[in-house]
């Protein structure tokens, strides 16, 4: 302890920075709370004055309208709650599939822009510049127009084996569920577990001996073989529910409607153009010296990408990629323009049947916020894993 200690600061003084900070924060929170309270009470008062009923009680009433396509069966006698779930499932369906496809396509195009082949490079740049610069709503309308105007009518549907393509959408056979499929599913799970074990073993082998084991073909083979074996053990069920062409509609089997296909195409192709730029920036961020060093060590191009470029590129790629995933999910709300029954479409109908506009909008906002927060949570935790540990 020094003799001359610093003059003691009073904790509860206006001169104390910490105290001032605390006051500012309390005031800021107060203003926000007041603002929200004011907006809410103003809305409620005005609604009451005008005799507009409010509340979420309508959610338990029967919806009374049917939904064109849904992942699980929905009857018009079921509640608005269920209808909202169907809409949410449809939104997630197009968003999840779209995210997967856009990531694959975007990665291919992004890598394509580094191609030594000028034609591939040019095509990839053209793709990006075209689709990135046209508003996504126009693209959705264009795909929908193409699918509904250009495809043949159901009577003259294009047929390839059990597959049909027409204005009615894309129809395909689906396997009829039997006990044998449960076996195959179990086999698949066991196969994945085995592949996981192999992965650990191969890694230890590599660290001990320096010999690189196959990390792709062997695990893939293990998974497929295990599933196939279990399927055969389960009696090899092969009965298919194939679509049958009627006069005005294709019955049975699985179906993808033109609305879903247009949404998927539009969102995938639009978002892929952004993702390819994200991937390109990630790869470009890895300095040339790194790849040259990898080549000098004798790594082949595949290993060079996997071991040197990708781990360094991913930390640049992941954060903006998360943005693109969020954008794709949010853009799926444009579905209402082309008749795909997503969450917004269901909410619109519910809003008009019940007149509960504020409530329906609140539900939709809460749902999109939740989806977006979950997505970024997931991506952030992945980002932490791939981020370079600085030592």
């Amino acid at each position, binding site marked *: 302890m020094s003799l001359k200690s610093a003059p003691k600061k009073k904790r509860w003084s206006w001169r104390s920075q910490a105290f001032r900070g605390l006051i500012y924060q309390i005031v800021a929170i107060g203003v926000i709370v007041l603002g929200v309270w004011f907006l809410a009470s103003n809305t409620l008062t005005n609604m009451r004055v005008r005799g507009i009923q409010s509340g979420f009680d309508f959610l338990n009433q029967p919806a009374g309208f*049917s*939904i064109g396509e849904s992942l699980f069966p929905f009857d018009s006698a079921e509640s608005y709650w269920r209808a909202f779930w169907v809409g949410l499932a449809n939104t997630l369906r197009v968003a999840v599939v779209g995210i997967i496809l856009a990531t694959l396509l975007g990665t291919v195009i992004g890598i394509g822009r580094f191609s030594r082949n000028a034609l591939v490079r040019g095509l990839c740049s053209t793709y990006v510049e075209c689709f990135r610069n046209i508003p996504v709503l126009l693209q959705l309308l264009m795909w929908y127009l193409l699918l509904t105007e250009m495809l043949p009518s159901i009577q003259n549907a294009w047929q390839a084996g059990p597959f049909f393509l027409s204005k009615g959408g894309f129809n395909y056979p689906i396997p009829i569920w039997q006990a044998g499929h449960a076996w195959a599913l179990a086999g698949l799970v066991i196969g994945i577990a085995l592949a996981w074990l192999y992965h650990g073993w191969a890694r230890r082998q590599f660290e001990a001996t320096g010999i690189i084991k196959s990390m792709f073909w062997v695990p893939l083979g293990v998974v497929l073989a295990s599933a196939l074996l279990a399927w055969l053990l389960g009696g090899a069920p092969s009965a298919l529910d194939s679509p049958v062409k009627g006069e005005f*509609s294709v019955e049975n089997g699985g179906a993808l409607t033109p609305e879903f296909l247009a949404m998927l195409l539009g969102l995938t192709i639009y978002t892929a153009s952004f993702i390819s730029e994200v991937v390109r920036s990630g790869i470009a961020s890895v300095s040339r010296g790194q790849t040259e060093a990898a080549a000098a060590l004798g790594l082949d191009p595949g290993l060079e990408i996997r071991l040197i470029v990708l781990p360094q590129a991913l930390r640049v790629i992941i954060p903006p990629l998360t943005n693109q995933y969020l954008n794709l999910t949010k853009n799926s709300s444009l579905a*209402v*323009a082309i008749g795909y029954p997503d969450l917004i479409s269901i909410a619109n109908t519910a809003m008009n049947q*019940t*007149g509960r506009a504020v409530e329906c909008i609140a539900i939709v906002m809460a749902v999109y916020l939740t989806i977006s927060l979950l997505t970024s949570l997931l991506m952030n935790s992945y980002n932490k894993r791939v981020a370079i540990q600085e030592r």
Partner: protein
Amino acid sequence: MNLKKLKAAAAVVATVGTLIAAPAQAGKTLDAVKAHGQVVCGVHTGLAGFSAADSAGKWAGLDVDICRAVAAAVLGNSEKVKYVPLTAQQRLTALQSGEIDLLSRNTTFTLTRDASLGLNDTVVTYYDGQGFIVPKRSKITSAKQLKNQTVCVQSGTTTEKNLTDYSKANNLNIKTVVFEKEEAATAAYFAGRCISYTTDASGLASIRNKVAPVPADHLILPELVSKEPLGPMVRRGDDEWFAIVKWVIYGLIEAEEYGITQAQVDQLKASSQNPAVKRILGSGDDTGKLLGLDKDWMSNALKATGNYGEIFERNVGPKSALGLPRGLNNQWNKGGLMYAYPLR
């Protein structure tokens, strides 16, 4: 410094707050309309015969004529209308929020809308029912043949629910494709995405005659699956304005009953000895005073649009492009449902 900023911010918040806080006063629509010198009227974005703008931007149609008649009665000039084209989604909210004074947009009167949405149904201006349109080559002649078929429909209407009810009652398992905009829904139907499009029969006639590439290729099925009383709505809580809109429409209907046509308004006003006619035209009792309007309110409206029968014939009647029969919309003494309360 910081404190100053904070104080300034608080002041701004407080001012903005008081500005938003003033709740809309009920019962002031007439004053507002007179002060602004215009009636703000919500109409359809484009439904030939009911409300559609021509190439010069001039609105015409049955629903539009109601707006014009109200403007003529209130302001003495049928041109003083500001038209706000609204989708089915937007229309009710636009009226609730006070964006428009009057919603004249082929809107169905239902209990939910009347009782729980802060709206008031005025008078039916068109008795309609929901029907189906199909391509003739489909060989479908009855709605009962729509089993397992795909039907296009616009969202935000009573149509969706009626369709589901009909499908269920007849065990048809109809699949729906729901679009936000009428244009998108009809485009999908004409592209062949759906075997049928469903909306009010009047709307179907409008679409067949104005949108279909070849009108003769399409058939409107005979079944009407619902009752659709269409008419203008006003905001709840302003009884004076509600009464004005209601009585302008009754006036138009009653004028037809007494044979007062657009061309004869001035002549009858000067010469007619019929007390009922004199009351309507303002040459007898001052009915306008009771509503807070001029004595000439109804004769102004009739000079602008003609009586209900003339409005019907001009916009949607048998001789117009839509060619709809008078049917239920005829006068009560001619087999229809148009029965105006007496103007006295």
